[in-house]
C-alpha cells in the first residue's frame, strides 16, 4: 500500500518537473552608482516601480525604490548596508514590499518583512502588500462597539470604540506604553476576542524584550503579535514597520475579527522618514520634515476602520503613541496626528510626579466617538464624571489659600477628591467592566466615608476584595449583560450596606 503512495508521489513530482516551462527570463538591471549611509543611487532601472523591492548582487542586500528618475533610481536599503559596494548589479524583483500574514503570526515576534525574530520557523500561506488602500466610505459602518482598556479613567470618560483611532500623547516617561500594554493585557484577561498587534518603531531591543516578557507573564502573548523595528535597524525598515503591522491586521479585519494595533511610537517613525528624505535630498520643510509628513501618517491611520456587515463587521482600532517635548502639543508632528485621530489621551508630567497615575489630564483628553462606544452600564454611571472633576479642579485652587468654603462647595470638593482617588490605578491593575461600575457607583453614593480612618485608596481595594469574595454573582451579571437594571442596582445597594458594616467590623482589627 505504502509503495503505491510513494511511487505515485515521485511520479507526480517527476511529471511536474518535466512539464515545467523552459523559458528565459528578461529583466532590467542597474548598477550601484553611489552609497550614502542607508541610501543608494542606482544607474539604470528605468522601469522600476515606486516602492518596488530591488535585489542587490543576487541577495547581498535588498532596497526599496523611492526616487524614480529617467536614468537613476534612489533606493533605501532594508538591510545589509555594510555589504553594498559601488558597481554592484541591481535587479528589480517586480514585487512591492509585502509581509506574510495569517493566524500563524499570533504569539510571535516578527520583523516588518515577516521574518521571525524569536528563532522558531514561521510558515505563512498568504502575502499582503504593505501599502494598501483604506476601506472606502461605503465599506464602513459607524463605531458602535466598545474596546475596553481595563483602565477606569479611560473607560468612563474617554471611551474607545472598535474602529476608532485614539492618540496617546505625552512627554517621555509619563506612562504612554503602560496604557497601551494595559489595554492589550485587558483584551486577553477579558476574553474579548480582540487580536492585538504591538508595533515598536525605533525602540531599544531591551525595551521590546521587557514588553514581550510583560505580555508573556500576563498570558497576553496568545493573542498578540509583536512587530519591532529596532533603533539600530535601517531607516527603511522603521519606515515600513507600521504599514506592515496594518497589513497583518487587515488580514484579520477582512475575516470579520477585531484588531487592536499600537504604534509605539510615531515620532520615531517620522524621524526615520525624515532621515530617508533628507538623504534623498528632498526639500526640507518645517522642523526639517519633508512635505509629505502629514500624508505619511494620514494614510496609515485611515486604514483603521469598522467594516460594514456586508464585509464581515471586522475592525482595526489604532492606538498611535506620540512623544512630545516639554509638553508642547502644538509642535509639528503632534498637531498633525491630533488632527488625524478621533481623539487623544493626554498624559502630563506634573500629574505623574504628583502621584496621579495614570497621569491623564481629563480636561484636555477627548474621545470624539464618545458615548456610542460605551456599554450601557458604564454610560449610566459615568455621565456626570467629567463635569464633577472639572468643578473640583476649579475649586481646588481655593483650598491652597486656606479659604473658607460654603457647604455646597465643600461637598463638591469632597466628591472630587474621592473621584480622583478612584481613578488612580496601578500599572498592572486591570479592572473588568463590573469592577469599574461598582467603583464609580460607590463614589457616587458616598460609600467611602472618612469616619473609619482608612484612606479612600485602601477602602477602594477593600471594596473590590469584598465583592470578589461575597458578591461574585453581581459582578458576573454586570460582566455578562453589560447593563445595570433596577434589580441589579438594588442588589448593589444592599451589597454596599453589607460592605460598610464589614469594613467597620474589620477596621477595629486593622487598627
Amino acid at each position, binding site marked *: 500500500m505504502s509503495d503505491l503512495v510513494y511511487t505515485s508521489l515521485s511520479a507526480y513530482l517527476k511529471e511536474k518537473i518535466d512539464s515545467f516551462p523552459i523559458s*528565459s*527570463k*528578461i529583466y532590467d*538591471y542597474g548598477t550601484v552608482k553611489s552609497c550614502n549611509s542607508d541610501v543608494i543611487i542606482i544607474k539604470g532601472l528605468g522601469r522600476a516601480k515606486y516602492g518596488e523591492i530591488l535585489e542587490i548582487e543576487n541577495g547581498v542586500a535588498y532596497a526599496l525604490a523611492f526616487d524614480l528618475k529617467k536614468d537613476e533610481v534612489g533606493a533605501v536599503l532594508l538591510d545589509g548596508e555594510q555589504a553594498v559596494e559601488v558597481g554592484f548589479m541591481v535587479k528589480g524583483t517586480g514585487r512591492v514590499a509585502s509581509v*506574510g500574514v495569517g493566524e500563524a503570526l499570533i504569539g510571535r515576534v516578527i520583523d516588518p518583512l515577516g521574518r521571525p525574530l524569536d528563532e522558531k520557523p*514561521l*510558515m505563512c*500561506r498568504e502575502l499582503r502588500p504593505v501599502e494598501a488602500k483604506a476601506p472606502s466610505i461605503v465599506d464602513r459602518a459607524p463605531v458602535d462597539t466598545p474596546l475596553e482598556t481595563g483602565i477606569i479613567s479611560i473607560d468612563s470618560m474617554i471611551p474607545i470604540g472598535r474602529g476608532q483611532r485614539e492618540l496617546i500623547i505625552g512627554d517621555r516617561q509619563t506612562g504612554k506604553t503602560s496604557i497601551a500594554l494595559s489595554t492589550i493585557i485587558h483584551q486577553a484577561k477579558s476574553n474579548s476576542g480582540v487580536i492585538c498587534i504591538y508595533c515598536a518603531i525605533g525602540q531599544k531591543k531591551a525595551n521590546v524584550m521587557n514588553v514581550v516578557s510583560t505580555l508573556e507573564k500576563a498570558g497576553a502573548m496568545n493573542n498578540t503579535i509583536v512587530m519591532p523595528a529596532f533603533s539600530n535597524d535601517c531607516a527603511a525598515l522603521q519606515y515600513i514597520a507600521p504599514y506592515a503591522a496594518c497589513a497583518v491586521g487587515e488580514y484579520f479585519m477582512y475575516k470579520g475579527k477585531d484588531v487592536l494595533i499600537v504604534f509605539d511610537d510615531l515620532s520615531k517613525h517620522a524621524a526615520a522618514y525624515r532621515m530617508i528624505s533628507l538623504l534623498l535630498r528632498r526639500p526640507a520643510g518645517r522642523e526639517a520634515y519633508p512635505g509629505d509628513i502629514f500624508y505619511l501618517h494620514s494614510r496609515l491611520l485611515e486604514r483603521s476602520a469598522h467594516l460594514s456587515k456586508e464585509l464581515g463587521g471586522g475592525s482595526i482600532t489604532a492606538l498611535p503613541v506620540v512623544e512630545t517635548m516639554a509638553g508642547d502639543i502644538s509642535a509639528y508632528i503632534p498637531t498633525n496626528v491630533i488632527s488625524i485621530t478621533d481623539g487623544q489621551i493626554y498624559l502630563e508630567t506634573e500629574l505623574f510626579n504628583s502621584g496621579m497615575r495614570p497621569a491623564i489630564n481629563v480636561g484636555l483628553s477627548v474621545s470624539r466617538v464618545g458615548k456610542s462606544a460605551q456599554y450601557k452600564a458604564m454610560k449610566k454611571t459615568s455621565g456626570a464624571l467629567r463635569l464633577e472633576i472639572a468643578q473640583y479642579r476649579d475649586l481646588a485652587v481655593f483650598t491652597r489659600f486656606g479659604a473658607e468654603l460654603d457647604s455646597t462647595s465643600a461637598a463638591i470638593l469632597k466628591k472630587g477628591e474621592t473621584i480622583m482617588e478612584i481613578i488612580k490605578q496601578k500599572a498592572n491593575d486591570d479592572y473588568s467592566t463590573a469592577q469599574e461600575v461598582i467603583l464609580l457607583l460607590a463614589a457616587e453614593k458616598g460609600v467611602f466615608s472618612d469616619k473609619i480612618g482608612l484612606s479612600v485608596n485602601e477602602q477602594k481595594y477593600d471594596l473590590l476584595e469584598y465583592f470578589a469574595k461575597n458578591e461574585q454573582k453581581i459582578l458576573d451579571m454586570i460582566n455578562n449583560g453589560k447593563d445595570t437594571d433596577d434589580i441589579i442596582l438594588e442588589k448593589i445597594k444592599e451589597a454596599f450596606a453589607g460592605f460598610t458594616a464589614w469594613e467597620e467590623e474589620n477596621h477595629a482589627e486593622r487598627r
Partner: protein
Amino acid sequence: MKKALLKAAPKTAPETIEKIKARFSQYLNEELEWSVEEDASLIGGFLAYIDGTVYDCTVATKLEEIKQALYDAVGRN
C-alpha cells in the same frame, strides 16, 4: 557600439558562445562590444547584460523557480 557582458557557465564550447553573440546581434539589429566572463554559480546556460536589460537563460535561475513553485504549493517559510 553598445557594451555587452556575457557570463557563461564553465566548459561552454567557444562555438556556442559565438552563436550566442551572433544571435543577439541579429535579435537587437546592431553590433555589440562583447566581454565574456566565466561564472561557475550559473551551473549551466548563460547571462547576457545588454544596455540595462538582463537575458537570464541559466540553469541556476530555473532551479530557483522550481523551488519557489514547490514552496507556493506547500506553504511559505
